[in-house]
């Protein structure tokens, strides 16, 4: 059964890593629903947050293939309930359409959105939230003459307690001290 997964890929700063990751998804015919790249809490380590819709078997396979890439440090796969995530959307609407009465005020307040800029021709509204919240606001604004709409990819924080640093330390130890067979 297909469902939504958020893949967090921690990488070194190496040119071409993005291409390598998209190749893996392309080969398996997986569409990227959303994509964000940013620096992580660890200096020099980058975080790519990729949202895909696929089966849990397939997401495990592609995650292992991503982790196999030389410049990838660690890959985590999460379902939506295992993470806290937000997306940001900007709406540009005609000022005329929204100036009548206190409609604008009502919409903005009830959606916990905010107005970034107002001019005689247009105004820009910002909304941070999840996909559903953003699409709800979108549907309410559409009748008033939507000029532009842009939405970011997902940014996500995991609920797990073990952080990247702990993994990096473990990997480092395993890497430096080649383990000798201990069973006997």
């Amino acid at each position, binding site marked *: 059964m297909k469902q939504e997964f958020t893949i967090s890929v921690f*990488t*070194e700063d190496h*040119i*071409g890593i993005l*291409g*390598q990751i998209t*190749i893996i998804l392309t*080969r398996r015919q997986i569409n990227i629903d959303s994509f964000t790249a940013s620096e992580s809490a660890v200096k020099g380590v980058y975080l790519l947050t990729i949202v895909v819709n696929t089966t849990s*078997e397939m997401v*495990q*396979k592609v995650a*292992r*293939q991503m*982790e*196999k890439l*030389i*410049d*990838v*440090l660690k890959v985590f796969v999460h379902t939506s309930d295992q993470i806290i995530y937000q997306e940001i959307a900007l709406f540009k609407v005609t000022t005329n359409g929204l100036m009548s009465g206190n409609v604008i005020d009502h919409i903005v307040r009830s959606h916990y959105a905010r107005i970034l800029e107002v001019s005689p021709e247009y105004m820009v509204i910002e909304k941070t939230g999840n996909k559903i919240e953003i699409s709800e606001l979108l549907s309410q604004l559409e009748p008033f003459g939507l000029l532009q709409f842009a939405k970011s990819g997902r940014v996500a924080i995991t609920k797990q307690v073990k952080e990247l640093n702990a993994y*990096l330390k473990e*990997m*480092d130890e*395993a*890497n*430096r001290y*080649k*383990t000798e*067979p*201990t*069973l*006997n």
Partner: protein
Amino acid sequence: MKTEQEKEQATMELNGQEHITGAEAILQCLIEEGVDTIFGYPGGAIMPIYDKLMDYEDRLRHILTRHEQGAAHAAQAYAMVTGRPGICFATSGPGATNLVTGIANAFLDSVPVVFITAQVVSGLIGTDAFQETDIIGVSMPVTKWNCQVKKPQDIPEVIAKAFYIAKTGRPGPVLIDITKDAQLEKLNFKYKKCDYIRSYNPHIPLHTKAIESAAIMINHAERPLILAGHGVLISGAEDELKAFAEKTGIPVASTLLGLSGFPSDHRLFTGLLGMHGNYGPNLLTNEADLIIAVGMRFDDRVTGNLKKYAKKATIIHIEIDEAEINKNVIVDVEIHNDAKEALRCLIPLVKENSFEKWIREFRICDKIEYEKVIKPETKPDKGEIRMGEVVTLISEITKGEAIIVTDVGQNQMYAARYYKFNHPNSLVTSGGMGTMGFGLPAGIGAKIGRPDKIVVTFVGDGGLQMTIQELGTILQYNVPVKIIVLNNNFLGMVRQWQDMFFEKRYASTKLVNPDFVMIANAYNIPAKKVSKREELRSSMEEMLAGEGPFLLDIVIEKEGNVFPMVEPGSSVSEVRLTY
């Protein structure tokens, strides 16, 4: 009074550094890594490296092939027989793109090859300059790692990293693309081998829990089967595999690339797996109650229809590449470790055992296969010469001591099925890619890597003509490789499929061939054409007696088919013995 430059020079010498060009640094790096042989082809952008190579002729031997693809295959074969990374040079643009088939081939078969390509000067990158290709982009999906170098001072570190990545973990090809200006400018040279990359960990701690569970399963199994893959050879686990199999008494079957990792004449050896593998191991995979897969990846040519594969078996998978575990076959115990280390740990935990009744089932299958396939194939008394008898004869005459190189297709399947391999790494073949044209250049690379061994290359008349220009390489360097052309005037394997699945409609598989003996002679290579059975042995002996290269063009039965066969989409237990 010393100039500033001289002072700097003196300080560097004190620090063990030299002030040399990027091109020279590349060669020094290779020497530091123990390289003595390079396969390649020059061109515009790589000229600074080739120019410097003349000063290093005493330490670095360069083999000029006739096409970059030939250099790539030769370097791969060299790596497969020596256990050291192969090195391959090519220039920018077409030089680099001509390597791609060879790179992909090495990638699918996990062979360490360091490809060094030249690139146009850094200022021209991205402008569609003459002979500029984005080889980093092109080679990305078929290399373990690749990197472009634009500054000479980055050369030592990148090359050190490339060697480390190519050799360790699951080996594979790496490509370094070096701009012409980086080759020409100077740097302060100092080399340090790489043994650590933060994001890459080839030394995986032993999964002792998984190994303990595996041992319990092995100790309770009634019909266990070991599937040995290329990983056994790569990790050098031949002795461990033998000790493990002998202690547990478990029969061993091999993948194509796993051949020669376990002695063919061992009482526990049951043969080759897969589409044209032996009857027993295919049929009985579906009767096994435990499968111990060692260093293999459950390729579709091995498993047949996955939905009907090994359904009665619990599966233990020992594999160094985690991405291969649960990729095709869902396994019960994952041992994500090096084959040698995992087996070494497993041996003391398993009990001594024997499975005579189970092994007898394999022997019954062997008898059936012998009567229906092997005997008519290897001991025909009439009709034209068959591929099976040629390979069997070579196996007998060389006593299993030769290194066998193959091209792809029927010749490859016959060589794999009928040669009796006794020594590790004595088969060089294109497994995952199935690259026609691999045989001739790979034969050259194998012979150059192991001059002490007899190297016999089996090629079909189709594959030979895909890289036939490499006869020029044999001529130039007098490479004493023995070439056997299994000549049926057909693209035999494709024709077999047309015969079986396309109503004998032989679309574009019939070949009108030149006189291969004349061609070989034109390259000063002794050659002989054989079409009579009674001349086979004597001509082979003549071929092997000479010290130089030799081409034996053997006229083979036109429409012979390789059996057994697991048809595409069929289960391994539906393996067919006859038409």
